[in-house]
């Protein structure tokens, strides 16, 4: 929008000569500036940004069957079939979950509610402090900006081993360290979390009481 556009409104609209009908006559003495009205109008039509209709005010509703300490069955993804312990719901709506890692190899991870079945098995995890873990904990580390690809570099197979940050390992051992004694107290729970969930012949999910 050019700033030097002069869109001066005349203080009053020029009255026409006598005798001619002029509808503008009725608009005599138009005030130059009303309160709140812009003084300058842009020469081009500026499209108004449509306000987003996404409601971020309410977080995803957590199913009543999922409470901190519930054992969940993962239905899809890399860890499908595993039974994991639910810790808390994150601001993004995803569920924060841990294996614990020593038991079934599931690290501190986020899961979507829809891909999880809540069992009725619950542990008291009030003593486990997970306040410090939020969505930012899982943000991908920003890679250094890649240089322009030369002919050689383009064909070079990048062997990038996924390195798990020390921060993650530290959090993992801290959370699991608090959880493991709680799990060991409950008979057979350790082996329950170690085992995978599977459907077998004659077992139908609509009839299972989870």
């Amino acid at each position, binding site marked *: 929008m050019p700033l030097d556009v002069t869109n001066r409104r005349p203080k009053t609209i020029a009255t026409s000569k006598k005798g001619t009908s002029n509808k503008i006559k009725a608009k005599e003495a138009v005030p130059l500036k009303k309160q709140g009205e812009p003084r300058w109008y842009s020469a081009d039509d500026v499209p108004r940004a449509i306000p987003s209709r996404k409601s971020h005010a309410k977080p995803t509703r957590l199913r009543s069957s999922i409470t901190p300490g519930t054992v969940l069955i993962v239905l899809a993804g890399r860890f499908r*079939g595993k039974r994991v312990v639910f810790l808390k719901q994150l601001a993004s709506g995803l569920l924060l979950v841990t294996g614990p890692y020593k038991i079934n190899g599931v690290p501190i991870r986020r899961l979507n509610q829809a*891909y999880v079945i809540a069992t009725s098995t619950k542990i008291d995890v009030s003593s486990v402090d997970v306040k410090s873990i939020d969505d930012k904990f899982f943000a991908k580390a920003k890679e250094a900006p890649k240089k322009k690809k030369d002919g050689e570099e383009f064909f070079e197979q990048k062997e990038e081993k996924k390195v798990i940050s020390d921060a993650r390992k530290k959090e993992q051992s801290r959370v699991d360290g608090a959880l493991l004694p709680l799990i060991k107290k409950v008979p057979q729970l350790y082996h329950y979390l170690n085992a995978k969930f599977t*459907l077998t012949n004659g077992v139908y999910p609509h009839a299972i009481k989870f």
Partner: protein
Amino acid sequence: MVQGRKGERVRLYVRGTILGYKRSKSNQYPNTSMVQIEGVNTKEEVAWYAGKRLAYIYKAKVKKNGTHYRCIWGKVTRPHGNSGVVRTKFKSNLPPRSMGARVRVFMYPSNI
């Protein structure tokens, strides 16, 4: 169908059979297929499966994405009749050769 997976196999889907297209005596509507889910015999039992995702998996000669296996995804839409048959819609209509074939009924999106 993950290559190189060494762990124990777990079945996290219910087996189903594709019965054919939604149809009347002389007209068929290929955008909706009918599926018989194993172990489901009444309209009330179908309620659990409403909205669950389905996969029709088939093999092809040409490798795509590094595998001979291909998949058409779909979902359970509603019951069909009183005896546990289910209507389903797939991303693209199922091919006629799928009639009588196996379909996987997954347990997600879960509501339990």
